[in-house]
């Protein structure tokens, strides 16, 4: 219902700021937005979820789909989230092992850049 997705460039990364509720009704909007970004060549995403009030399995599926898409372009997808109720959704589904989750956008950008560098070196 009330989902907002905006994006901006910062330090060579695309910050996708999501707020509101990500559920079975709104998740397609997020999926479309992520697909557009990846399609337009944005392969290093930082999804800022600090404004997300609710997240369900459909939303998780969209994030997993986004991760797969950026990885197919040698990209990355980092999450920013400190909200316990949202983190719990990632923990219960085992996705904390799949997504790098950071406290701040700055942390995510730093981690994204360093992993990117390490990836290039190996």
């Amino acid at each position: 219902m009330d989902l907002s997705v905006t994006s901006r460039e910062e330090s060579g990364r695309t910050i996708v700021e999501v707020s509101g509720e990500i559920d079975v009704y709104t998740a397609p909007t997020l999926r479309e937005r992520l697909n557009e970004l990846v399609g337009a060549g944005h392969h290093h995403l930082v999804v800022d979820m600090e404004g997300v009030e609710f997240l369900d399995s459909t939303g998780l599926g969209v994030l997993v789909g986004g991760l797969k898409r950026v990885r197919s372009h040698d990209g990355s997808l980092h999450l920013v989230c400190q909200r316990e109720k949202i983190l719990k959704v990632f923990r219960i589904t085992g996705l904390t092992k799949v997504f790098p989750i950071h406290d701040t956008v700055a942390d995510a950008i730093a981690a994204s850049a360093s992993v990117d560098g390490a990836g290039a070196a190996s």
Partner: protein
Amino acid sequence: MPTIALRFSPLAEHVRTARLVAVSVARRAGFEEGQLDEIRIAIGEACARAVGRTTAGGLVDMRLCDDSSRLEVTVVERGADGEVLPATDENEDPLALALLQGMADDVSVAGSTTLPGVEERRAGVRLAWALSDPAPVTSPGVLHAPQPRQRT
């Protein structure tokens, strides 16, 4: 008799309404914020699952019962004739299942359950939560009346 029963067309936009109703009932029953978050998520999963399984012309049927110590929720799919749809062999989404199991105190899903008032095995999800700290039972009927102010 359920405390609240809600039937809705199998459309994704109604799942939020079902969540709001369920959380409202749970809040009045005395559940704390942490438990309300769990209830919100599990009900959302159960109803989204039902929306995906209800055939055209059918309805999703959610029933909530609270008995001062426990909240029980059943979500079933009904066909256009109003009958509960039988369990299907449709694959379960592992993420949705993990959330159902992780968020509810008790959960049974699909053909593995016998729903209250239904003899044979049916489709549907049954969820239950125990009140972590049940409020002492006061006189029924005035549970939500404002407390009179104490004179000092």
